[in-house]
């Protein structure tokens, strides 16, 4: 699943380790999400969205744009 996590992290000048700490996951998990190797669970997606003050669908794109 595509996402804007890397862009949002860069905008705040956070390292992967710093973001991982804020999300309470490993740095490897942040890297895997950014590179699309791991799709976060719904609770983690909500934590990410709340941390960046955005909606989940504004951060993650599943490629399905049907309303």
């Amino acid at each position, binding site marked *: 699943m595509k996402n804007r996590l890397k862009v949002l992290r860069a905008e705040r000048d956070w390292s992967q380790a710093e973001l991982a*700490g*804020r999300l309470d*996951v*490993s740095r*490897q*998990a942040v890297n895997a999400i950014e590179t699309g190797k*791991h799709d976060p669970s719904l609770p983690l997606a909500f934590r990410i969205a709340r941390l960046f003050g955005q909606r989940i669908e504004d951060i993650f794109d599943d490629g399905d744009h049907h309303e």
Partner: protein
Amino acid sequence: MMETIMSKDGPALSGEERTRRRRRRQWVYFAVAAVLGGALGALVSAYDSGGGDLFLGDYTSLRLNPALSLVLAAGFLLGFVFLPLWGFTQIDEMQREQNMIGFTGGCVAVLGCFPIWAILHAGGHAGPPDAFGVFAVGFAAMAISFFYAKFRP
């Protein structure tokens, strides 16, 4: 600025502190597993009066004091069942997914190994199924599955 999450169980911890604590617990897990495994192996080796070897397949020759065998069985229960299950609670969701893929690979291998081996034995292609052999195949499949999940492109 640190993100602080409130908890009903006590003082809230920052995400960074929770991550540090989880990492420390993971190292404790590795250390306990290594010490426990070494201690169990050493005890089996030291008190075996039959000349067998648990991890080289010759387990039928092992002879242990009945009380000691119960203690060791409890140790293996701790090491092979409860410690891994506790370990699942100490890792994040991505690591849990990788571990679950590993455990699934091991489980599937054990389920498939015996009937396949028995059929091969019936056709004269292999010796009779062996408990340690099934364990070894399951363990190897678990390791391969885990590393596939961890390093897949």
